């Protein structure tokens, strides 16, 4: 299986350990990730989608044509990119007038949206194309941690358009993917709540964003988790950088390490903190990694 690998911005330009872990994971799963040379920002739905639909759809469509030219479905592991690209792809496939309007823009750069590929989320590919059985086979070191699953918003919603889960009130996909690594997905209050960063809010009003994040962190901490696991680099940044910002703003002392699902699989495959660039996170991940390793050693000697 081959897939066009859409990078986006925050993963490759801030948390390259997520990209590294993904490349190693997909190697192990015999899926070829093909780089989408010259792809850009999805573009950021909060700003481009809010300011000008035509520009948003045109830049998204340009990215989609790169995958179309490769003849491959596209994979992203960012909920924001997923939302933007999936929505644009559906809109242009379903609406001939919009397609014509956007293709007129794209003709300026010698491109044409055809509507020949699908947009898929990383976690969706792990569930639907790889399958849980095969995934379990690449886990070398079960990660014995209690974690808070953070789904994020644009991974599943709007459910009618996305179709990964029939309802976003009580989904299971991320919890199941987490538990294959040996970690336990712990229930917590308002689990499906937004991290606070989306829709352009983080850059527009950081105080409001941080009040969302603080509420989520309180609920996660009350459940006694060792780490947060997400499937979106923007949520990831919000829980990592934002956690530090919450501590500074509110005088709190949250220190819950943050893993993208790809990094959790990296740990399960035995990759180091350095390879996963987790030692570059603002929130120190070493206590969680040390606990996971100690638990593993304990079980291995039993």
């Amino acid at each position: 299986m081959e897939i066009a690998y859409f990078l986006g911005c925050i993963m490759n330009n801030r948390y390259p350990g997520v990209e590294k872990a993904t490349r190693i994971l997909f190697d192990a799963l015999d899926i070829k990730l093909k780089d989408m040379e010259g792809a850009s920002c999805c573009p950021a739905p909060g700003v481009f989608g809010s300011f000008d639909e035509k520009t948003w759809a045109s830049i998204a469509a340009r990215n989609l044509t790169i995958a179309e030219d490769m003849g491959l479905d596209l994979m992203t592991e960012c909920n924001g990119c997923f939302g933007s690209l999936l929505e644009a792809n559906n809109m242009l496939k379903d609406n001939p007038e919009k397609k014509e309007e956007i293709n007129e823009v794209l003709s300026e750069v010698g491109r044409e949206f055809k509507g020949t590929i699908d947009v898929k989320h990383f976690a969706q590919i792990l569930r639907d194309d790889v399958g849980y059985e095969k995934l379990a086979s690449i886990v070398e070191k079960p990660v014995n941690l209690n974690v808070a699953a953070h789904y994020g918003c644009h991974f599943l919603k709007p459910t009618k358009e996305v179709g990964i889960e029939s309802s976003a009130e009580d989904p299971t996909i991320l919890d199941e993917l987490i538990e294959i690594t040996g970690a336990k997905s712990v229930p917590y209050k308002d689990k499906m709540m937004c991290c606070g960063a989306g829709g352009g809010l983080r850059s527009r009003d950081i105080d409001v964003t941080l009040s969302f994040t603080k509420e989520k962190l309180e609920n996660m901490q009350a459940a006694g988790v060792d780490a947060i696991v997400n499937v979106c680099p923007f949520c990831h940044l919000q829980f990592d950088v934002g956690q530090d910002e919450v501590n500074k703003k509110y005088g709190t002392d949250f220190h819950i390490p943050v893993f993208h699902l790809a990094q959790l699989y990296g740990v399960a495959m035995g990759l180091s903190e350095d390879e996963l660039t987790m030692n570059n996170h603002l929130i120190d991940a070493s206590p969680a990694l040390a606990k996971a390793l100690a638990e593993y050693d304990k079980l291995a000697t039993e």
Partner: protein
Amino acid sequence: MTLLTDKELLNMDSLDKDFTAAFIDAGIESVQHCFQCGTCSGSCPSGRRTPYKVRQLVRKCLLGLKDEVISDDALWMCTTCYTCQERCPRSVVIVDIVKKARNIAAHAGYMAKPHRMTGLFVINTGHGVPINPVTKELRARVGLSELPPTTHMFPEALKEVQTICKATGFDELIGYDEETGELKPE
């Protein structure tokens, strides 16, 4: 004595029919289906901490209260989390309404500087969050290419993004100054 003033009374002159029509024309006919139950506001994480009232926003868009909607900072407090839309018993595409209202607001000049800056980054680099020296070093350290194989690595691809932003007028919308590569002074 009444507490109502003329200012607080709505009459037909207050309503902008073109504003309402903009939603219908954009395919958001479901704005008309709202029966104001308030499930949206009750579900809204932003409404719990800010003056953002999504139920009221939908009503104002349907009535055509354009100026009230587009000049309100609260319009930008939505994180587009879709909780309202998922729970709406009338299947109103609420987030589409928010985005359409924001598009009209932006085109009327209501744009925050940090948002315009994100637009500027995309025009200048192709990325809303461009690479920095720390990440370049990190990428190299773990064996990835120092620059990702995106517009960062391919200047001709960046040119395409810039051509698109010019063709749609996005550069003018955000006040991009091609000479300096910065935003024009407000």
